């Protein structure tokens, strides 16, 4: 479930900027605390001689502006790169129910496969998850693969994922959705390309999902 142990492209990018920002935040914290402790110390040497203007322009305008300009430029570029702009290699529907996830694949032969709380993806492939809801608002989130996106009644939201490492990962509904919210979990298995094809071929046919979310 950790965002700091990424196994997907978006999650890897975000984990990197998380560390960068955390480091920056610690630095600024230390700086501000040190300045404050020094300035408010009754026994410190002598009052500051800089002009008011200089302090306020430097600390109030230049310091925060230089940080946020860099951050915004990075954020725009990086956010853009995570969007489903080009065509995906695979589409999966994820439908939120109180309180389970239904996943729907259409195989190459047109056969529809439906699964409950179980998602299978091939590695190194651009996947678009089409997120919908049949009742209240949910949020689809697999921290190891990328950010979350809400499932909103009446809409279809598209989340681009690209798993980079095979393995089993946890997913969880991230938007409060009522009594069973805490248990609205699912498991993602990222397969090697060949293994994925085998899995899909062997997967059970449509309609084998029980409404309580238990696996068929």
């Amino acid at each position, binding site marked *: 479930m950790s965002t700091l142990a990424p196994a997907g492209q978006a999650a890897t990018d975000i984990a990197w900027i998380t560390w960068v920002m955390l480091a920056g935040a610690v630095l600024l914290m230390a700086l*501000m605390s040190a300045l404050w402790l020094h300035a408010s110390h009754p026994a410190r040497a002598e009052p500051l001689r800089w002009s008011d203007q200089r302090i306020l322009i*430097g*600390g109030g305008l230049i310091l925060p502006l230089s940080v946020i300009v860099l951050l*915004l430029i990075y954020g725009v570029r990086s956010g853009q790169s995570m969007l489903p702009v080009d065509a995906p290699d695979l589409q999966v529907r994820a439908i939120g129910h109180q309180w389970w996830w239904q996943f729907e694949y259409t195989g190459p032969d047109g056969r529809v496969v439906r699964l409950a709380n179980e998602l299978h993806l091939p590695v190194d492939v651009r996947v678009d998850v089409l997120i919908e809801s049949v009742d209240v608002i949910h949020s689809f989130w697999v921290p190891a693969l990328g950010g*979350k996106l809400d499932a909103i009644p009446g809409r279809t939201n598209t989340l681009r994922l690209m798993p980079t490492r095979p393995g089993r990962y946890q997913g969880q509904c991230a938007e409060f959705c009522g009594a069973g919210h805490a248990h609205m979990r699912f498991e993602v298995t990222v397969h090697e390309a060949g293994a994925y094809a085998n899995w899909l071929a062997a997967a059970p046919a449509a309609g084998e999902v029980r409404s309580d979310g238990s696996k068929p």
Partner: protein
Amino acid sequence: MSSENADLNQTRLEALSAAFATPPGWGRLAAVNHSIIGLRFIATSLVFFVIGGLLSMLIRAQLAIPGNRFLDHDSYNQIFTMHGTVMMFLFAIPLIEGLALYFIPKYLGARDLSFPRLSAFGYWCYLFGGATLLLAMFAGVAPDSGWFMYTPLSSGEYSPGINADVWLIGVTFVEVSAIAFGIELVATVLKVRTGGMSLNRMPLFGWYILITALMMVVGFPPLILGSILLELERAFGWPFFDVALGGDPLLWQHLFWLFGHPEVYIIFLPAAGAVSMMIPTFARRPIVGYPWIVAAIIGTGFISFGLWVHHMFTVGIPQLALVFFSAASMFVAVPTAIQFFAWLATLWKGRPVRSLPMLYLFGFLFTFVCGGLTGVMLALVPFNWQAHDTHFVVAHLHFVLIGGFVFPLLAAAYYWLPLMSGRAPSETMGKWGFWLIFIGFNLTFLHMHLTGLLGMPRRVYTYSTGLGWDGLNLVSSIGGFVLTIGFAMFFLDLVVRLWAGRNSEGNPWQAGTLEWSLAHPPAAYNFASQPEVQSREPLWEQQDIERQIRDGEGYLPQVRHGWQETLGVHAVTGKPDQIILLPGPSYLPLIAAALLGVFFLGFLFKLYWISAVGAVVALLVGLRWAWITGLDRDWPKLDAGRGIELPLHAQVRDAPGWWGMAVGLLVNGTFYITLLFGYLYLWAVAPGWPPPTFIDSPILLAFLSALAIAVSAFALDRSVRGNADGRPPTLTLIVALVSALVATIALSVELATGIAPPSSHAYAATTTFLLGYCALHTGLTAVMSGHALLRWRHGYISPLRSLDLRVIRLWAGYTAVVTVIALALVHGLPKLLGGVA
């Protein structure tokens, strides 16, 4: 001073005390004095703080270990919903209100607020609304859909019980007091100051409260509108948020966060205002960069309305829209940094002294800067996609709210306590309290950032083991209990001190602002005479000012006719321009709030006829309230002390009442604009449009409504002008009354015959709501015109005393504009955008 003069002065002070006194016994329920109302707000909010704190202990107890069975999901969901609701609506905002009501007149050198009865009314609304929520919790039917109440989870279909109604009705009831506060404080800060206090000499606390009050005026109407719409959906099936019938659940989120984000700054700014008062005192020098801070407050006030979508980064909004909000969210760091560096520079350029409040202020700096930095992180869109709705956000928001609100107010509590209670501070327990709170807080929340990054979502009542969250949560729970012990220590200290503290000498911190010239605790009338100020820190700059105040050498030293008088000044220059007569104690605020409670409770229990009765009687009481204000004869200019004569406020153009109505219309206008936003939003964005039918009524009917209300507004304008020239306004008022009635009837006919049932489609529901809003306003215009007619006949209105008429003219002008716009939209949009499904 000779002993004879001293006796005279004593007699004068006794007369002031008598004029400003609140009756004993049951008469306390009639209290309107700002110190009493302020203290009631503060005490009540602290009770809610304790309740909210206990709820958080239950949350931490449940999350201490994985798979805990201490609470089930149902109680947990009620508890976390109530924790958020109590802390935001029943603790933070009311505490701010209480502090401002108590301190603003003292900072501004005034004797009371502009509308003392309005703040008493606000208090009762707060108390009754809060009690509703609390009783529901004890009955086990507390709201359980989160303090953000996202629909459709909070809709009738998925929350069929009374729980969600309790939230919508209780919180709206409390919001009435926030609106009352906003109007009260804008009018007070601008008009009710002492002589010479131009804008540049106003203590920064006044600026912070002015902008906060304006933000409340603009920020709360979206929430009130959203709550009304959701309650209409739940009660009558009007599908504003139901996607199957043309509604959209995202409209709720927009309305909620349009309020919800400014709310954070509404909470932070007053606390920053308290910081801005303490820092100069302990640095022993005036604040650095006063205009910079004022500019930063103004900037924060505006920019904070451009951040709300950063709570909605994951709902699927196009990237560039997210970037706009991301940019605004980051940019708010700039005004915040300006304030921080101004405080820092003040300390660094001064000769700081050690004190207990300064210790808490360090806690504030550390905690709030940390919360601000994680806030900038969360403003980064991709990071937000991961961190949103995890415990990272839980940690961030507690750093911001406890750091930006609780720590500065703990500092302020120790700072202000000698003034408020007359008891001197003692250091030891306060220091213990600080370290327990500071360590407990960080032990709870600092590593919770990591818990969130490790993937723990918010609002889960339990979690399974083996995800790396177990130890982190256990530490958080332990920290939470340390934090609670710290707060218990603080409250214990408070009680001990109030009970058995040493008596405080005057101005123990040697501060420079006016409030410290008062007796500790202050008299009901605050100032024995209102001083002429010549600087921002009069106690530092103006020798002898305390004696001048005490000995009656300032403005309005004498009581006449038993009146409670305070000075009114020009909003910018601080030049005295009127004597404001303050209303005395009255049961009307309590009665009005109780009737409003009848209205709300009728809704809660679906007994709508009781609601209707409550609303009508409340309107009658409101009219009575308006009836007994004002003067029934003209007065000449009166001696105001210091050799000047001033008119009474009912006889000047620029009275607080006029400002009150203007700010009230700002509230109303914001409500209306938000309503139009919702109307157009659904039209443009919601799936399920166009609707099956559009409005179908003769266009002539719409023209008749528009024409009639325009005539009414015009007739009221003629009334004001005629009255000023000495002509009786009888005829014009009758014309205004009749034409407003015609407009109301025409709108009602259109409502009854032209629109499909509101429950059939969001189009019909929003159109009905919009036209109903107009009909209500035209109806009230008629009532007000009739009221004015009666007042004129009874001598309350004269060419000199024209405030009534000018206030109604303002209202009618507003009504005419909104009605014409609404009718144009309702009839024009279908033709413009066309297409029926």
